């Protein structure tokens, strides 16, 4: 079952989100998937229990414009994704600097595919 998403470019994001807000959509959340050499960012919006999804694909190491100036609620989730995937957001109103959830000891960006295998290897070493 496919998820119907509207694919847009990174530069269109701010304008697209602002137009959704203008017609009464509220921000639900943002999902991020590691595709190997790029990330899929899926923005979920909701209006009267009808959902609409925007998808942008960014290369690793790219920055994404933050939508926390449009929806304040996006603040937490953007910080979370910064922790987990290492994607930098431009113009985040409150930046925890990648330590929203994680302490110094934990390796960086645990949700990226390369690093997911590491804890297993470390466990076997114990």
């Amino acid at each position: 079952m496919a998820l119907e998403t509207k694919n847009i470019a990174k530069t269109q994001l701010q304008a697209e989100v602002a137009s959704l807000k203008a017609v009464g959509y509220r921000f639900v959340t943002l999902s991020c998937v590691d595709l190997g050499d790029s990330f899929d960012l899926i923005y979920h919006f909701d209006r009267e229990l009808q959902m609409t999804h925007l998808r942008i694909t960014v290369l690793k190491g790219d920055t994404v414009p933050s939508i926390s100036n449009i929806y304040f609620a996006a603040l937490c989730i953007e910080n979370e994704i910064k922790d987990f995937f290492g994607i930098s957001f431009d113009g985040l109103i409150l930046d925890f600097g990648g330590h929203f959830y994680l302490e110094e000891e934990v390796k960086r960006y645990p949700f990226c595919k390369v690093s997911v295998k590491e804890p297993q290897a470390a466990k076997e070493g114990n």
Partner: protein
Amino acid sequence: MGFFTKLLETSRVKSPWIVHFDCGSCNGCDIEILACLTPIYDVERFGILNIGNPKHADILIVSGTVNHRNAKVLRNVYDQMPEPRAVIAIGACGTSGGIFREAYNVVGGVDKVIPVDVYVPGCPAKPEAIIDGVVLALGKLKEQRTAKDTDSLAAELHQAREFYANRADRQVVE
């Protein structure tokens, strides 16, 4: 003096005070610990009192897995407790890490950070099991009282004083 020490020791075992700290628990064990305090199980029958302050507590109940961030808090709570003290690890997560022990941010059971006296298995542990665990921990408290010496107490007091002198969290900003 001997009489008062004895009285103190007896009262400690007769009415242990408990502090509960939730590490990375899923809430399942937490609500079972709280359920022990409520009318159906009512551990206050035994003089067991749940208090929020580790400095007054004899027994530390820990539920949930330890991760890197709350390990420091757990250590801190444990250090603030006066001797003799006992630690109870509740649930599969508290005893070994349970289903999460392969996750990246999980250190493991409580015993990786602080010494644990009683392990209560279950996912979540039943209130009856938690009461049993507290009773077991009381035995530990009784044994520990002879091992107490004043030097280590004085050292701990000094450590605690230094901690409070250098406390960074509560600063006053102009």
